[in-house]
């Protein structure tokens, strides 16, 4: 029973993380580090909650969150491609701006009640003992987050559009000479990713961490940047990382009664793990591949997009 409850909590706690991690993965696959994740998630959490509160429809809140996220991503994309600015600089400044903007604009929404996302048990299959309760008795947004994992994998690996996005993030020049509109792809990937980050923000304030307060989603944006790397830019592994972090959070809450120090430090664990993964990825890439057992590579390896964080070359059309 305890075990079952823990899984249920982990799945619903991880909902926004899954969405955000996949959004950031798509963005980074197109070659753009959306460093504004921390700010984007926070201000979309506010806009999601505020619009949900004003209209009394949670769905409007989710849409508002998505819109907010995509506007910010579009702005980064414009600065990156049209103005040829450093995407990292723009993302960084936007993070700081959005955090303070959400704290300023959100003052009227602190600790009030708005629309709430309720659980939706899927008829029949939710009646299956144990499994039914664990997997099929959640809110709609949680189902969406679970479905998003295979969908995004399929999108990135099996569709033309997804492959074009990846090509633009790996080698813009080669992609461009193959007739791919690299600028458009990069913009598209960034905006889709931003929309998902925004949706993640809204699902914090409308579901997982209901309501709004100052710095409501603090540090989640930085954490998802770490989880994307943990996931090696693969949606399935990224999702596993997000669930792992959800489990850490549950453990941290449980540990609170035992030791205060542990509960404060557990949520920081993704960061050192991220660094080790990065070292390992680079190490594998430089040494003979078959030196390592295959399972180790599939758990710890990863394909960092070659052009990640770089400006597009001048002659890319």
């Amino acid at each position, binding site marked *: 029973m305890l075990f079952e409850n823990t899984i249920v909590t982990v799945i619903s706690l991880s909902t926004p993380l899954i969405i955000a991690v996949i959004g950031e993965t798509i963005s980074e696959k197109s070659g753009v580090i959306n460093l504004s994740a921390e700010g984007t998630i926070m201000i979309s959490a506010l806009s999601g909650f505020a619009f949900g509160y004003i209209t009394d429809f949670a769905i409007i809140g989710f849409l508002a969150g998505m819109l907010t996220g995509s506007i910010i991503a579009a702005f980064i994309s414009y600065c990156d491609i049209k*103005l040829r600015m450093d995407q990292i600089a723009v993302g960084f400044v936007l993070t*700081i701006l959005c955090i303070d903007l959400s704290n300023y604009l959100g003052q009227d929404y602190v600790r009030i009640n708005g629309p709430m996302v309720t659980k939706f048990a899927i008829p029949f299959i939710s009646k299956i003992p144990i499994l039914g309760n664990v997997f099929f008795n959640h809110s709609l947004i949680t189902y969406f987050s679970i479905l998003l994992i295979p969908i995004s994998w399929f999108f990135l690996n099996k569709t033309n559009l997804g492959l074009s996005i990846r090509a633009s993030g790996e080698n813009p020049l080669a992609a461009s000479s193959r007739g791919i509109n690299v600028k458009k792809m990069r913009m598209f990937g960034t905006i889709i990713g931003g929309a998902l980050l925004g949706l993640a923000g809204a699902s914090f304030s409308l579901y997982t961490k209901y309501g709004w307060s100052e710095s409501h989603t603090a540090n989640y944006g930085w954490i998802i940047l770490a989880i994307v790397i943990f996931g090696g830019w693969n949606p399935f592994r990224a999702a596993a990382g997000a669930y792992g972090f959800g489990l850490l959070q549950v453990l941290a809450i449980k540990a609170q009664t035992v030791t205060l120090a542990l509960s404060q430090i557990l949520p*920081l664990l993704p960061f050192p793990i991220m660094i080790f993964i990065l070292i390992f990825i680079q190490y594998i890439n430089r040494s003979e591949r078959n030196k390592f057992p295959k399972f180790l590579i599939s758990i710890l390896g990863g394909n960092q997009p070659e052009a990640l964080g770089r400006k597009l070359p001048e002659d890319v059309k």
Partner: protein
Amino acid sequence: MNKNIQLIQINFIRLVLTLAIIFFVLTLFGTSPISIFDSIIYGSMGSYSKFIRTLIVWAPISLASVALIYTFSAGMWNIGIEGQIIMGAVGATFVARSFFGDTIISPYVQILFALGFGGFWGLICGVLKVKGNVHEIFSGLGLDFVASGIVIYLIIGPWKREGIASTSGTDVFDKASWIPTIGQNEFPLLLILIIFVLYIFSFFIFKYTSFGLRLKATGVNEDAAERFYFSSGKYILLSFFIAGAIAGLAGFSQASGAYHKLVPSISGGFGFLSILIVLICSRNIFFTLIISFLFSALIVGGSQLQIKLGLDHSLIGIIQALFVLSWLILEKLKLEKILLSKIIRSNE
């Protein structure tokens, strides 16, 4: 036309445009920009004691900013600066709690430890970059959080206050460990001296030494560095070590000058703020000194906004970030150049 004069004109026009954008946004928020800036100026420089408070905030920000000039020159994004500030504060606290704590030499030993701790933390980033090819943004971000984890652990664990384990901070340092000040209003002479020495030192490094030149060459093009027979890796490592060490001093200033103890959020977000500052100063030492002071004045003056005008202090962060964002975009749009040439043409 003289190139320098044109540069000043362009920057002046840009400043006016940036301020116009900020005024516009503040008006959009339904606030009065004039009364906001009036209250900020009064709150940060209205009296000698307020000015001292601004200096105490300015010290860590100016130190972190000059630290960042080294890494930015080498083309590195030192997002790990927050962690380096935090570790500097840990080093200072370590000394303050040791047998040095109640001796008169405590602050000077703290400086050494802050330099060492911060430098070490910066160096990790550098080693990961040079030896492991790990993007410095991710390692820096990771190390920031690891550092804050260490601080939380120390405060709740080994360095906890008598009997209470809370996240409110360690015991207050012995008076001897505070950064020495002068006069009744506690003018932080030692800190100000450190800042000016470091700024002048850095100015000479970048202007007159081959070290500074090579650092900048590394930032422009790593391959170029190799063509001139010096290892860019060495310069990247050095830039991270120096930046970390100076950032460590910022942590020392926070722990022993501002709080007089170690608290969980000891860096106060000043590391990230310094990144914003250095972004608009394009590595100009003199601009960095001025802008870091103006931003500190905004922070100190902004703490009065709530009492005087009933406005949330987050407005200050908005003003700062908006300033930097508008500045960076205007720089790319080159509107000023067009404007300037129009003005000149209309005069002729």
